[in-house]
């Protein structure tokens, strides 16, 4: 199995290299002065000059590239023109919030979506199936930012059940930062009121993000289960006395979820991207709102760093997905 993982990682390396090349080229694709372009619209001449020296824009292009690679290897992505802090620091501080939101949304999508998909397949061509198919069609078509605002409108403004934005009510004291995940930190701090408050703030953004994924997972799980149910071993397992519930939820499910796992992988990357807008709307202090802020202020260093980060996460998730595929279906691992 280790060989399997190593092989996958080796396959990913060219893509990562390509990613670095692409981001490098993006800096130089601009016709104007690359240092000014990189520094952003809000930069001062000193900042631009400093950047020019740091990146060596006066030197030949391959030298520049190696300098760039060196910087990336040291996780040095320069300074944000807006916050005047190292980008790496900003990202490190904001990452847990985004991860908290992403995992929450992913968990909602998967733990609700997979059972619904199975139910739809079991009730093939009956009304539960039609309802779920309609729901999944709608879910994929909904614009996340619109859903976010509509949910805010209904649950926050009209009904007042849930807070409008942010991670925690401003009047509530923040717990000391242990993991960076606010909800967990509240638990560690032992404060029940902060914990509940944090959960309430997490609710709307997480639900918004989860809807698109929910629709996709229902769709793919349903298709996978329907395909599997047509296979002969299902009939034989029934003949040999398997109990129906266990048959479906254990023995059929594992055969059915290959496509779903792929989608979950894609979903993870998509959530980080989709989170951009949702974070902005809910004022969630994560990478997404950081990105939006960078867009609006023309902070290009940040944009490039985020692009690299997201691309790398995608690649890592792809490897993980392949690994899970191998675990689910041992035949795949033997095909090496």
């Amino acid at each position, binding site marked *: 199995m280790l060989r399997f993982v190593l092989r996958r990682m080796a396959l990913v390396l*060219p893509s990562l290299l390509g990613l670095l090349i692409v981001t490098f080229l993006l800096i130089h694709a601009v016709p104007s002065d690359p240092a000014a372009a990189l520094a952003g619209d809000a930069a001062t001449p000193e900042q631009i000059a400093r950047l020019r020296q740091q990146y060596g824009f006066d030197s030949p292009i391959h030298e520049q590239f190696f300098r760039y690679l060196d910087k990336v290897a040291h996780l040095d992505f320069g300074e944000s023109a807006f916050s005047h802090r190292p980008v790496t620091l900003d990202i490190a501080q904001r990452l847990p919030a985004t991860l908290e939101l992403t995992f929450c949304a992913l968990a909602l999508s998967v733990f609700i979506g997979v059972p619904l998909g199975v139910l739809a397949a079991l009730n093939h061509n009956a009304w539960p199936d039609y309802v779920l198919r309609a729901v999944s*069609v709608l879910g994929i078509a909904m*614009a996340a930012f619109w859903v976010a605002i509509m949910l805010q409108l209904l649950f926050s403004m009209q009904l007042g059940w849930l807070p409008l934005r942010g991670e925690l009510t401003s009047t509530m004291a923040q717990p000391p930062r242990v993991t960076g995940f606010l909800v967990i930190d509240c638990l560690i701090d032992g404060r029940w009121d902060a914990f509940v408050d944090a959960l309430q703030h997490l609710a709307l953004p997480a639900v918004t993000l989860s809807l698109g994924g929910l629709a996709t997972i229902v769709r793919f799980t349903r298709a996978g289960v329907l395909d599997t149910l047509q296979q002969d071993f299902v009939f034989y397992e029934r003949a040999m006395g398997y109990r129906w519930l266990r048959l479906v939820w254990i023995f059929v499910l594992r055969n059915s979820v290959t496509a779903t796992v792929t989608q979950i992988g894609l979903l993870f990357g998509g959530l980080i991207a989709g989170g951009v807008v949702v974070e902005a709307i809910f004022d969630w202090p994560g990478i997404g709102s950081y990105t939006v802020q960078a867009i609006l202020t023309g902070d*290009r260093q940040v*944009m490039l760093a985020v692009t690299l980060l997201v691309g790398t996460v995608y690649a890592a998730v792809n490897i993980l997905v392949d690994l899970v595929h191998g675990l689910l279906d041992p035949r795949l691992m033997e095909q090496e």
Partner: protein
Amino acid sequence: MRPILRKLSRDLPAMLGLAIVVFVLLLAIFGPLIAPYPEDAASSHLTRRLRPPSADYLFGTDNLGRDIFSRVILGARGALSIALTVVTVAMLIGVPLGLVAGFRRGWLSETIMRVTDVVLAIPQLVLALALAQLMSPSLETAMLALSLTYWPFFTRIVYAETRRLSASMFVDALRGVGAGTGRIVFLHILPNSISPVIVRATIGLGFTILVAAVLGFLGMGATPPAPDWGLTIAESRVYLPKAWWYVTFPGLAILITVMGFNLLGDGLRDLVDPRIRRSR
């Protein structure tokens, strides 16, 4: 053509999708003629600001007194033209690259496919935002950025088909008869790859409308006073919760349009792909 249409007509969701797409297309073409207040694309009537839906103003009015119903209809033109431009440019880039990569072996083919993988490795939105920002935000750069993120999908499809077909016997036979490369590619291979490309293009249209709406929302696409759906939703935020109609109807327009393209695309895919046993 006829047997295809007959088969499609039995697929209810696909027919619904087709109806929606045709409807939106008509709105895009005849928008100014259908909208009750076509001048509201630009003009403002401050005396009738933020009125709720009524018989005169079916979707209510916005903060400048403009009829939202008309602006939604007029917005169809913008949404569809963006989508068509983006997908067309993406096809113009992606399809030839796929043909070349699939037909020739060697470093050129490898390079093209590696680049394709890299571009696909980055989530579209992030890449489009990065590109749009670098090229100074405007509607044109947004469209270019979107095209540059979407072409790999077409390249992948065409590559797979070309690879498959170029290895088949009938291409050898054609060569044996003396057919030139260009002839083989354009007359024989390309027509066979058209179907999956069309399916992808249809779904791509829906997807682009969605992403373009996000860009409009962020202010990276259309600019005021354009009746862009995403832009309208962005404008509506400050007037909530009172003016609920301001945000609801443009969003529904996006929802229904994208759903239409998705359903149609799904239906087309079921027609085109008989080898995969589809669980419908």
